[in-house]
């Protein structure tokens, strides 16, 4: 049994009295020591999926309407609030897209890490502080025993994201969810943060769910990939297999829109159109208004998930025809 199993997850947003589905029938699983990448454009439901796993879907407007999430043998959706909180920040931790604003500006970073440690482990303040210094040095913050007393505004974006990682790792989580952890950072810092995460994974055996809109980041760091489009997983496979044979026209479009330094192409290919908004009613395949291979069938019938190759699933009526 996998560490994390998401089955047929459905999430809906309540607007103007109506429930609009934003995530539909999403399934995947992640094993120990494995990295799953979830990729897609803004608004495809990848962040909501991550927040749902973590238990951070806020308030009454966004909620889980179906499916289940199993973590380490527990059904997360049936746990009490207290039981759920004992997992959050402990066996399952999350880092966010906005390192500049994700730390509380009025507390020293050390105290923020200590708070997480002491929430879940019986430790004195001094012990937790030693652990915080150790964690800061683990994420390669220089002079950790001094920087532990810094305030967030005294650190750069990259350093703050390292602090977030240190905080997330403070209770040795089995699963780390990283929602666009490098999007707000400079390219060179991006690489450092990703390397750091990969390095920590090898040392600690943590499972990682990495959410990104950047196929380049995903291809370098993930063992397997799920491509999401408008609330559904449209293609999923081991990273090697996926990039060897792109089965879905959307994935292909995403890849073609990445510039390649050595190529002679004058114009980058872009996927025409945009992700349809939630209010727009769509029949058939959600990608059909933007797809080059569109037929009448695509506009009327939702493609079911089919096995394109063993371990490589896709939702497209014409999955075979887009292979290079």
């Amino acid at each position, binding site marked *: 049994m996998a560490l994390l199993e998401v089955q047929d997850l459905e999430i809906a947003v309540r607007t103007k009295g109506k429930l609009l589905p934003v995530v539909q029938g999403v399934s995947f699983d992640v094993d120990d020591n494995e990295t799953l990448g979830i990729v897609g454009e803004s608004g495809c439901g990848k962040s909501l999926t991550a927040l749902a796993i*973590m238990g*951070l879907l806020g308030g009454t407007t966004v909620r889980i309407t179906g499916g289940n999430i199993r973590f380490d043998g527990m059904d997360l959706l049936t746990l009490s609030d207290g039981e*759920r*909180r*004992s*997992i*959050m*920040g*402990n066996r399952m*931790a*999350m880092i*966010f897209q*906005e390192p500049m*604003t*994700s*730390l*509380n*500006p*009025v507390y020293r970073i050390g105290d923020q890490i200590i*708070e*997480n440690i002491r*929430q*879940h482990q019986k430790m004195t303040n001094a012990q937790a502080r030693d652990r915080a210094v150790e964690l800061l040095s683990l994420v390669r913050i220089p002079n950790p025993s001094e920087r532990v007393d810094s*305030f967030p*505004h005294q650190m750069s974006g990259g350093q703050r994201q390292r602090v*977030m990682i240190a*905080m997330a790792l403070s209770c040795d989580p089995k699963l780390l969810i990283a929602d666009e952890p490098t999007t707000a950072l400079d390219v060179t810092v991006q690489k450092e943060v990703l390397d750091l995460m990969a390095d920590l994974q090898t040392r600690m055996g943590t499972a990682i769910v990495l959410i990104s809109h950047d196929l380049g980041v995903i291809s370098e760091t993930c063992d397997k990939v799920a491509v999401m489009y408008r609330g559904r997983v449209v293609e999923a496979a081991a990273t090697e297999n996926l990039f060897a044979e792109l089965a879905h026209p959307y994935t292909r479009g995403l890849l073609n829109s990445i510039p390649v330094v050595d190529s002679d192409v004058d114009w980058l290919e872009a996927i025409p159109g945009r992700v349809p908004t939630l209010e727009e009613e769509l029949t058939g395949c959600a990608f059909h208004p933007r797809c080059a291979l569109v037929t009448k069938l695509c506009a009327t019938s939702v493609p079911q998930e089919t096995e394109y190759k063993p371990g490589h699933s896709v939702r497209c009526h014409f999955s075979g025809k887009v292979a290079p």
Partner: protein
Amino acid sequence: MLAYTAKRLLTLIPTLLAASILVFLFVHLIPGDPAAILLGDTATPEEVAQLSAEMGFDRPLHVQYFIWLGNVLQGDLGTSIFFRQPVLSVIGSGAETSILLASMTMIWIILIGLPIGILSATRQGTWIDQITSSGAMLAASIPTFWLGLYLIMIFSVTLGWFPSSGFPSLSDHGGITNLRYLLLPSLTLAAPNAALIVRLVRASMLDVSREDHVRTARAKGLHPTRVAIKHIFRNALIAVAAAFGFTFAALISEAVVTETVFSLPGIGRLVVQSILRRDYPVIQGVILVIVVLYMVVNLAVDLAYARLDPRVSLK
């Protein structure tokens, strides 16, 4: 922190000087001979001329100012025309009442404003929030003199629980229990200001609760109450602290009305009576004291601000 405090103290000096010039000019801005104004309608020309020479009104204005400033710095604010006593001791006699009234009011504002504001924010959209929010709206809209009179009618006249007017000193018979004389006035003064704080705490907490670091706090698995107090309220307090300076300014003007309604022997009522008596040295003295007090309170607010928000003092 020390350097910041020193810097803020230094910036007080020019402000104080400017304020002292305005206060000094106060008597001279009223049309006519200041000596004639000070002496009132019944004075003879000889008396006016004598006082003019006594007070130095015949000398150039800037000379008068420096003499006056020198006296003020030595604690001499002049002599009350009505009481025939030094202004400082006249003000001093009202200080006990006013300081106790202001302190009790501040305590009410904190005890009522902060918890209800937190409750209202954490129960956003529920009936608790509806009741506290509309209650705050009501309290903020009631004029203090009207509320004061109503409280007197209910709790003093009808129920007879609290005295309706006056305030014997704490050193008089009754000692600390004399504070009951200040209960209704302080509640009257606190009501609109506490309402303001309720609304401010609620609004700032709702603002902060949408910030990213609150999501981080929740992701740590902290109990919602701990997230609300330690993370949301603590950050909201920065905005609330700034408002306490304004609240203090509002208290000064509202105290004038409240002390009059409850016949309290405080500085507020002293101002009203001194204006009616044309006791200009006292008015001048009170204004100066209020200016200094106001600046000290705002300095305290600024220091609290720097203490609450680590990003401030380092700039």
